[in-house]
């Protein structure tokens, strides 16, 4: 640690709250907008990504409202009502996927937590990091502007804002509808998604370089916390898959603007080729969404249950396995597209093989709980809910991976329910739990635990009410993306809609809790949960260079060296236990493998 610039060495011990930390060492606006500090960039992401989440959520509520009963609701004119609904679900999907789910955990928590966990002072390419944030902002502006102004366009009947034609193709941009039939602003929306892709690529590139090159002495691969393993696997996908999205959207733009016909069947193109292109990115993208959640859950469970993670190596390597296998299963989105039976069989088989590493993770989490000492705080509650919801989401994936049943279930509400359990039920719950978990580290203040638990329970109930019933609706044959539906399905939709409102209630409670905690919460100790990953070895909030004293790298889950602070101020290290653990872990090099 000799080379550490001692400019902010103002605190005697590393755990005491520093006078000058990354939040206040420079308060000017410019120091935030042009910061190269990974922690501040993480916060910038948090603001924008949560805004995107709000937009997507509002339109989720709107489209559930339209579905309360068959027939048009928002407009007497059917054509207008259907168009409005189509714009709603497209907006909801595109915003949630491209602007919220994909960047949420990697860009916010990955940026903030990963370098600290790793013991590094920053990510490998700080300026690239800031750049990718601004690329994200620009792309989001394109996308959000087009989609939102498009809603006005549908309501008023002519474009109100310049170029604001919205998007009604669904977030998948399937050709030839998106290239020849749709009269919405496909170009602008595609451009937005295209730009967002580069932000994702640069973030992933940054994390790969960071994990490879910035590990301090003693931080061997198998001493890395599981969150880093998961984020690293995610970065691999981002780097290897997102470029294909770029070229896909490029071809889409060329096809719509210049009439290049690569996907146009009337002139020798092939619309199913587009689906190959799109899903070659978008299925791995599903793992971009869920893998970081896996990492978060591993941290949350082991920290709040005070027990060393069970089967460290299996969880770590299953992340990599999922990331790589995830590239070979895209065809299971195309079982009914006329894809050849051979391709279908291959894709189906590989799809099942992915289920195993996913199951291994779940089993190891449950095994970690055994004999543990569980503090059922809000983050832990979210982690437990995650296990439940991901189990449902994963198991219903079997119905869709099986060829025969998928033919029946494809493009029905069964699929909708399935991927909401995986994307929302799992990823969103992990995300909120992670924010609660690292809230003290990020802002140096605590949230109200009771309110947090209430919010968690309400969200959980509302979520299951919304989507569990949709499995039934889908199995009964309710197709997705329907603005209206046969009366027989009405009961399902009404239950769903009520559930959606309950979810939003839970969201408001959570938001309220965060705002209160942010401004009026009690001051947080350096280590409120007794975690042993490196971010708990520094003050909260951390100083500008993350560590005032070089952290001793050991087994990240050796939590016994932390004991409750007698004067109730979080958890403090027990020196002799720490020494013993250090000796032990030096004994055999990789701390993870106990």
């Amino acid at each position: 640690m000799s080379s550490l610039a001692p400019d902010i060495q103002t605190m005697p011990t590393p755990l005491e709250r520093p006078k000058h930390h990354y939040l206040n060492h420079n308060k000017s606006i410019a120091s935030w907008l042009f910061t190269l500090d990974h922690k501040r960039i993480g916060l910038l992401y948090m603001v924008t990504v949560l805004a995107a989440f709000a937009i997507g959520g509002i339109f989720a509520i709107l489209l559930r409202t339209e579905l309360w009963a068959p027939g048009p609701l928002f407009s007497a004119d059917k054509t207008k009502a259907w168009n409005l609904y189509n714009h709603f679900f497209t907006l909801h999907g595109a915003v949630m996927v491209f602007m919220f789910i994909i960047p949420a955990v990697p860009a916010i928590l990955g940026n903030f937590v990963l370098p600290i966990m790793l013991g590094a002072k920053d990510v490998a390419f700080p300026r690239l990091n800031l750049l990718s944030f601004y690329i994200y902002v620009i792309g989001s502006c394109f996308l959000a502007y087009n989609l939102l102004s498009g809603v006005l366009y549908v309501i008023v009947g002519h474009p109100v804002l310049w170029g604001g034609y919205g998007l009604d193709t669904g977030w998948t941009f399937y050709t030839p509808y998106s290239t020849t039939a749709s009269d919405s602003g496909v170009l602008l929306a595609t451009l937005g998604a295209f730009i967002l892709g580069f932000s994702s690529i640069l973030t992933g590139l940054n994390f790969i370089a960071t994990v490879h090159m910035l590990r301090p002495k003693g931080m061997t691969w198998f001493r890395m916390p599981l969150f880093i393993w998961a984020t690293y696997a995610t970065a691999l996908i981002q780097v290897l898959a997102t470029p294909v999205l770029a070229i896909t959207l490029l071809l889409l733009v060329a096809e719509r603007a210049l009439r290049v016909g690569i996907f146009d069947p009337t002139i020798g193109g092939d619309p199913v080729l587009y689906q190959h292109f799109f899903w070659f990115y978008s299925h791995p993208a599903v793992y971009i969404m869920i893998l970081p959640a896996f990492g978060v859950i591993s941290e949350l469970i082991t920290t709040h249950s005070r027990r060393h993670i069970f089967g460290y190596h299996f969880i770590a390597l299953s992340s990599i396995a999922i990331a790589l296998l995830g590239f070979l299963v895209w065809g299971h989105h195309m079982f009914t597209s006329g894809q050849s039976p051979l391709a279908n069989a291959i894709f189906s088989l590989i799809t099942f093989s992915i289920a195993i590493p996913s199951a291994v993770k779940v089993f190891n989490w449950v095994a970690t709980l055994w004999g543990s000492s569980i503090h059922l705080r809000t983050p832990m509650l979210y982690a437990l809910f995650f296990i439940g919801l991901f189990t449902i989401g994963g198991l219903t994936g079997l119905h869709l991976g099986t060829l025969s049943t998928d033919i029946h279930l494809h493009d029905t509400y069964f699929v909708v329910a399935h991927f909401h359990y995986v994307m929302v039920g799992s990823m969103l719950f992990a995300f909120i739990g992670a924010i609660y978990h690292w809230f003290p580290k990020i802002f140096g203040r605590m949230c109200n635990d009771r309110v947090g638990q209430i919010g968690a329970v309400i969200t959980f109930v509302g979520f299951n009410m919304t989507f569990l019933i949709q499995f039934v609706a889908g199995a009964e044959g309710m197709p997705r993306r329907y603005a209206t539906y046969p009366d027989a399905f009405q009961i399902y939709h009404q239950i769903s809609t009520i559930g959606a409102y309950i979810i939003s209630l839970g969201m408001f409670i959570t938001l309220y809790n965060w705002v209160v905690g942010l401004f009026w919460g009690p001051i947080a100790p350096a280590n409120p949960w007794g975690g042993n990953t490196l971010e708990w070895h520094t003050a909260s909030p951390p100083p500008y260079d993350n560590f005032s004293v070089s952290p001793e790298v050991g087994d990240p889950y050796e939590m016994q060296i932390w004991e409750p602070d007698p004067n109730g101020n979080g958890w403090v290290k027990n020196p002799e236990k720490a020494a013993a653990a250090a000796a032990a872990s030096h004994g055999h090099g990789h701390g993870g493998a106990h």
Partner: protein
Amino acid sequence: MATTASDTHGHDPSPGHDAHDHAKVGHGDGHGHEAHPAHLAHHFDTPEQQFGTSKLGMWTFLATEVLMFGGLFVAYSVLRHNNPEVFLWAHKALDWKWGAIDTAILLASSYTMAWGVRAAQLNQRGLLMFMLALTFAGGLGFMGIKAIEYEAKWRHHLFPGKLNVLNVEYKGQNFKAPLTAEQIANQKEHTIDYVDSHDKPAGGEHTMPAKQESGNGESSTHGDSSAEVHTPPVAHDAPPVIASVHAELIGTPVIDPHEGTANAAKIKPPVTIPGGVKLDALEPHQGGHAIVTYGMLHTPDQKKINAFFSIYFMMTGLHGFHVLVGMGVMVWLFIRATRGEFHSEYYTPVDLGGLYWHLVDLIWIFLFPLLYLIH
């Protein structure tokens, strides 16, 4: 203190998307190599670590480039696999000689680039600047030839996709926006070149030119053989070409590119030759953009005619864009080299710029046989 070399490396991997960032780097780096060199970022310990990180980042970026072009190669494979005949003859609109020259130029520029890196490593500043200049010139020459080729395509309206003059869907019916006035003007003007596409046996369902004099070529009688859609009004006063139609490509009536579209109704008599090799004899000397009429194709293939031109323009276009970016990088490196910022202890930007340039070269190495040398 944070505007350091690591950042120049950091953004260097993405020349395409952060041009504005290039501006910053000018002042980013100090000279010398003392205990804690000025170009060493605060979060690195040693120049080696920082150098290695930059290389790792660059190679990762190159991997993304490979996958991005990989998508185009997938499209190429599928389209060619679905329409082999189309690719087989449509590529004759290109001249392999130009392609070969392109390849040689790019290889040479790669050679000079590698030499430039060596010069930087050996503190040969003047040589480095010279090599960078040569590399830039190579890119310039490459783009010049591309310009010649594109210009000829443009002259013959061999556009990608639905705008391609050979395309039966030429009118762009399937699109919301009706054609603009000049598009309609264009198609009136240069569909003349292709009157010969009518009285061929394969095109049985095509209507006779006489039909088109009445009306304005819109009325459809039976079937929707969209061929008559672009049958020119003046078709009847153009001498019909007797194109010998085979399943194989034998006999290619050719329009001399010198004529342009002005009076292209003068059409050379069909040349019948066995085998593909001598087909190149059809190509005029300069540019060699022999426009082969598609009368020789099976009727279903005629509808797919743009499959080749679309992929050709997308691939060469995207590659050309990368060459342009690479030339920009060369200029930037040259400027920094004139300031003497590179030396044996610090030449990372040269190295990374070189890696990028070599990748562009690599992609062309594959594009050349796939586009120009189809047999």
